């Protein structure tokens, strides 16, 4: 318990101090890189809600990530070109306001997860993994071949969306926004993990029969978790698109799903802060290994393999051990 709290604090502090240092050292790229880690951490937290807390191995979370990205892309695209998104039956205009875009991304992610989850949760095990993958692929191919919003070329947004009172093009200010959102999501997730719902969901993961025997329906718990998971991942997608000022079907590809899963595993499945550590570690690896060799994927693969085979529980498992009790 103690060590986990310390590690949490260290990671959060490091993520905060690095950009602040970079600001004074005039290394703006380091700020951008940290922002990327923060946003991917939010995506990981989203997946972890389904994967870690609910035991739902989804290989289709790129769908929610990409939908969040497209929610941002499409809204900003229309605002940028002064064309309405829809005129009939009601007039919907694009927007460049971040809070509004986040809301749309969250709702889109949640709705998609609700529908995909409602269908996919009829299956279990490998079937669940594969049907989520299939839904992800459907979105991917749809996005590639749908011409209205750029198809495979994606959508470029020339100026980052706005947040009242801030200059979002300034890396440190955009970082601040993402960091605060990370804190909010972390706090919400941390509370949810300890809530009545979190307790029952955890039981449903470990033993669905037990949950039925106490009069609850696992399916509803899973579906709720999956929906929340989709909402958080959608938010991360919108932020990620805003970071790059660009969205494309690559966000929807199955490799993206795999990578988000890698963050969760590197950090530690089912730990509230696990994905934060995992995403930071991943960015660090990508950055340091990428400079090492053209064939750096080999090293990444080897490290990942090592973690899965020998360091179960990821970074958190390694440092904190298997202590779980949290009351």
């Amino acid at each position: 318990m103690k060590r986990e709290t310390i590690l949490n604090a260290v990671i959060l502090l490091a993520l905060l101090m690095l950009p602040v240092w970079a600001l004074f050292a005039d290394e703006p790229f380091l700020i951008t890189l940290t922002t990327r880690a923060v946003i991917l951490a939010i995506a990981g937290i989203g997946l972890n809600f389904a994967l870690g807390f609910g035991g739902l191995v989804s290989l289709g979370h790129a769908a929610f990530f990409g939908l969040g990205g497209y929610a941002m892309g499409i809204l900003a695209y229309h605002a940028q070109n002064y064309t309405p998104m829809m005129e009939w039956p009601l007039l919907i205009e694009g927007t460049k306001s971040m809070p509004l875009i986040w809301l749309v991304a969250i709702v889109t992610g949640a709705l998609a997860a609700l529908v995909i989850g409602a269908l996919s949760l009829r299956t279990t095990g490998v079937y669940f993994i594969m049907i989520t993958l299939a839904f992800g692929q459907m979105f991917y191919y749809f996005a590639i071949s749908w011409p209205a919003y750029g198809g495979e070329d994606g959508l470029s947004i020339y100026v980052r969306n706005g947040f009242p009172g801030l200059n979002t093009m300034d890396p440190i200010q955009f970082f601040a926004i993402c960091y605060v959102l990370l804190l909010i999501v972390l706090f919400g997730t941390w509370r949810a993990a300890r809530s009545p719902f979190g307790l029952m969901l955890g039981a449903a993961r470990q033993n669905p029969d037990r949950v039925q025997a106490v009069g609850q329906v696992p399916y509803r718990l899973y579906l709720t978790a999956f929906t929340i998971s989709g909402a958080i991942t959608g938010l991360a997608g919108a932020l990620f698109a805003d970071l790059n000022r660009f969205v494309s079907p690559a966000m929807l590809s199955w490799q993206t799903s795999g990578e988000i899963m890698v963050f969760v595993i590197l950090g530690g499945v089912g730990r509230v802060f696990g994905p934060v550590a995992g995403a930071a570690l991943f960015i660090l690896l990508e950055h340091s290994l990428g400079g090492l060799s053209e064939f750096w994927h080999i090293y990444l693969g080897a490290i990942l393999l090592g973690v899965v085979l020998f360091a179960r529980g990821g970074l958190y498992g390694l440092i904190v051990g298997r202590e779980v009790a949290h009351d």
Partner: protein
Amino acid sequence: MTDPVLDIRGVSKSFGGLKASDQIDLDLRSGEIHALIGPNGAGKSTLIAQIAGALAPDSGEVRFGGRDVTALTTAARARLGLARTFQISCLAMDCTVLQNAMLGALGHRGDVFRFFRPVMRDKDLVARAETALEQVGLQDFRRFRTAELSHGQRRQLEVAVALTLAPKAFVMDEPMAGLGAEGSRQLMTVLDRLRQQAPILLVEHDMDAVFALADRISVLVYGRIIATGSVAEIRNDPAVRSAYLGDEA
């Protein structure tokens, strides 16, 4: 005499050609422990599954608290007050003992979909869970991880979880299985007291326990109930002796 709490009428279930349950009639009255015994493969687990709602019978009905629950799910039956313990411990192993007990209390109270208030600070839930743990004698282990409990303690915890559901009837599937003498004795004391709270349908292999606890015994052989009666009646039933106790006597 009052209506039985649990009433199984003409329940049949076949798998392929095998009749696992054949026109079974069985009831459970308030205040009693009704033991269900039978050799391996007699169809006890199949019957329990149909009572709890995990399996649907081919024909017949299950009535609980005066209402037909045959079409209801396991969860719905549990909410009506039918508490089940499992043959193989069915607990959230990574949770603490207290949390497992709270699961029952929470499931019974029903307000699961709350996401913000820490459950461990819910005084009402903690109190209900602790009461149940005390009843089975696990109060000193509340902070232990369930996986750390001994086999017998897990059995006790199963019973405690069932208790938190404030049940109208218990269905217990071999609660003594794999317990040592000491464990069995402890659990028997618990069950003995429990029947005042709600009647128990007890499936059990341990004959000493059955004869010590049961008010009535039904004997299931090849999917059929061949006899129902008091301990003395069953001991002396010739059909039971030949079919079941025969190999022991």
